[in-house]
């Protein structure tokens, strides 16, 4: 097995990730890539307490993570790569060989416009996702496994209807 999901989710570790994806994919480890979390003992402890004991949680900064991803792909168990923002995932696409990106949740904030129930983007973030796609990654939005994976361009076009 390998990294079975490369997910952007501003809530990072939460129910959808640990239970919604974690259980059906039999996920044994999560690689959480976030500069702020990686540098804070308190943040790491907060997230560590959110995963079941049989699930391993690794923390890295974006710069640290990119060269390590090949090793994680060789892990015999399934794992999830998780970032809290598009910029960090873009780094991992550019330098870490990520080829499929799941938009799992980018929630409401001032200046963002709604694209899906769980995706809100600023114009800059919209462009950043297109940049990720132009680097060769397949970008889709899907909050939980039972939902349909919505292709990036379909999602962006859908905003016109909201």
């Amino acid at each position: 097995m390998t990294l079975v999901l490369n997910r952007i989710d501003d809530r990072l570790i939460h129910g959808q990730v640990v239970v919604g994806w974690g259980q059906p994919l039999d996920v044994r480890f999560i690689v959480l890539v976030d500069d702020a979390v990686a540098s804070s003992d308190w943040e790491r402890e907060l997230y560590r307490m959110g995963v079941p004991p049989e699930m391993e949680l690794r923390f890295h900064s974006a710069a640290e993570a990119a060269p390590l991803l090949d090793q994680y792909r060789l892990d015999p168990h399934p794992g999830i790569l998780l970032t809290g923002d598009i910029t960090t995932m873009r780094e991992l696409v550019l330098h870490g060989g990520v080829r499929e990106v799941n938009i799992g949740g980018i929630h409401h904030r001032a200046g963002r416009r709604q694209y899906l129930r769980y995706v809100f983007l600023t114009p800059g973030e919209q462009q950043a996702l297109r940049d990720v796609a132009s680097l060769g990654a397949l970008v889709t939005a899907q909050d939980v496994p039972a939902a349909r994976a919505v292709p990036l361009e379909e999602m962006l076009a859908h905003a016109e209807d909201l």
Partner: protein
Amino acid sequence: MSDPTAKKALVAGHGDFAAGLISAVEAVTGRGDLLDPIEVKGLCGEDIQLLLRQRLETIGATVIFTDLQAGSCTMAARRLLREMPDVLLASGANLPMLLDFVMSSADDAREAARAAVERARAAISIYGAPT
């Protein structure tokens, strides 16, 4: 209790968890109005934290019930506890827990919540299908 009609706790969780549980509390005890449902669909973690803080301050509550230990409401509440250490957070909330809480005669809502958590643990049973 000083004001038996005041809201005593927030209830927050996935989907319609809060509204659903509170409707069940109301059906059983008629005291659903002691609990304040928090709706978090579409909110980022920071906004959930802000919402919890605003609701606690508005109604003067000191207790938060959440559904899932790893859920975004629990994570946001745990962050909030750094700023509001006197607030009590109970995750894994269920109907027996909330029933015990709203029926409590304790003067302090946190004391009522601690007792309710213990009661809820003991309220889980299985029957039949002998192994």
